[in-house]
């Protein structure tokens, strides 16, 4: 029902026991039909990106999978458990990192982590907090109130809090929206860190580049349906060849940023000195038509 746009040749890659299985999920808010029959499977231990424009329904799907909303129709399973039937068991297997860093500003980083450890009824919350701080490079800032953290540090703490108790499936809803490029790099390495430990990650993003950087598979959600769901190389084959060559390689605002700050070499520059203004626009229009 949602496969009209593209075939799914790599279907066999998903194991018999996926970490997430979504079938025919529909959801309306009032008269707005947000999800119109979503099918999706996420293999255990993989990073799966859900790419889509604002309003495509990404957050709604995440809310259903994390037991914060009920689907109107269809079924959703996380870690083999139906989210509607046994939400509390699902909550034991998952963690959610929402669109805005949900950290307690008035507590320190250490206290935030210990709070989550206590709520997950772990033994030795203090030790759990210390280990998480170490893992995410927050030890130096551990005992400062989070109110003084930078955007990237907040996000790192946010993700670290999500990992307390080693949930098997982690949902990241637009983890880098609103972050500057450096902070985005920090988050990306945190996500890679996560997947390296065998955790399944479903992340939503508006940025094609983010999906490219992180994901084993990319699903494109558009107007409440999954248009395609495949690996990056397979998706690239779906694109008309002629276009891939040049248009996509224009420096993005981000490349310009890195060129100016000298932190990373941009891949190519057409107008070396003054080219930042016109660049974002083709990228934006491209994003909308993509997703």
């Amino acid at each position, binding site marked *: 029902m949602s496969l009209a746009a593209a075939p799914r040749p790599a279907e066999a890659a998903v194991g018999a026991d996926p970490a997430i299985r979504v079938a025919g999920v529909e959801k309306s808010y009032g008269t707005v039909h947000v999800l119109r029959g979503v099918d999706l499977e996420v293999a255990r231990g993989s990073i799966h990106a859900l790419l889509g424009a604002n309003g495509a329904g990404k957050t709604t799907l995440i809310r259903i999978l994390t037991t*914060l*909303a009920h689907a109107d129709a269809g079924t959703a399973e996380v870690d083999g458990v139906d989210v509607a039937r046994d939400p509390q068991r699902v*909550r034991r297997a998952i963690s959610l990192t*929402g669109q805005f860093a*949900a950290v307690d500003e*008035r*507590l320190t980083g250490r*206290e935030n982590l210990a709070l989550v450890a206590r709520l*997950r009824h772990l033994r030795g919350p203090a030790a759990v907090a210390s280990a998480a701080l170490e893992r995410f490079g927050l030890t130096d800032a551990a005992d400062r109130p989070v109110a003084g953290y930078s955007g990237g540090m907040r996000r790192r703490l946010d993700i670290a809090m999500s990992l307390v108790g080693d949930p098997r499936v982690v949902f990241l809803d637009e983890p880098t929206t609103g972050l500057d490029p450096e902070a985005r790099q920090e988050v990306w390495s945190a996500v890679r860190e996560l997947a390296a430990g065998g955790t399944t990650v479903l992340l939503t993003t508006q940025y094609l580049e983010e999906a490219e950087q992180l994901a084993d598979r990319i699903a494109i959600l558009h107007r409440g349906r999954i248009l395609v769901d495949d690996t990056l190389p397979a998706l690239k084959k779906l694109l008309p060849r002629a276009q891939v060559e040049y248009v996509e390689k224009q420096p993005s605002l981000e490349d310009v940023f890195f060129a100016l700050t000298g932190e990373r070499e941009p891949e190519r520059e057409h107008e070396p000195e003054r080219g930042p203004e016109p660049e974002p626009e083709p990228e934006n229009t491209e994003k909308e038509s993509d997703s």
Partner: protein
Amino acid sequence: MSTALADTATLTRRSMTHILRSPDTIITTALMPIAFLLLFVFVFGGAIDTGAGVGADGYVDYLLPGILLITVASGVSYTAYRLFLDVQGGMVERLRSMPIARSSILWAHVLTSLAANLVAVALVIGVALLLGFRSGAGVGAWFAVAGLVALFTLALTWLAVIPGLTAKSVDAAGAFSYPLIFLPFLSSAFVPTDSMPGPVRWFAENQPVTAIVDAIRALLAGEPVGAELGLALAWMAGILVVAAGVATVLWRRRTR
């Protein structure tokens, strides 16, 4: 269920930490009622005849119960504010996606409100003692007063949960407490109701604050409490049940 108590304790500890880190919220809560106390005792008090003897000493005894209710009414706005911040900041969503007893999230805010307001009330009573407040009440009567103030705090706190969950801005979250702070002025808290003109008097005599103030005043004066105690309890229990009911429905409705 088994984790509900532990989760509530963990989350209460969290919001109590907020208050201990910024005790100004308690001081601000106590400041306005103390200002009212000073104003009424030293400025208006000499001209107000409560029938209980003219003069500052008599009036502070008359005034205190209403001031205590004003303290709680302004204090609960912080509960709405803190809950609003948790909703806006995504903390509520994070907690609701975790394997904890969901009711513990609201209960932590309610218990914190109870503790913070009782501290603020104690501060105000301390200032009243300095201003000459004296009570002939026995231990039992004091416990009864504490119980009434605690019940009043619980009722208004659950009322505060409603804007905390639904407000669209910080200002809106706290604004509901203004009419609550004003209500004691249209009651027997500052002057006897029989000095008021017809419709105002009717309102004053039939609104909850008058019954609660009269009950607390009688207890503090060591006098026998009559029908006003039952009326006060009925009002507060009614407000508590309705407010907690509406808040619970709103809370459950978040999962949609």
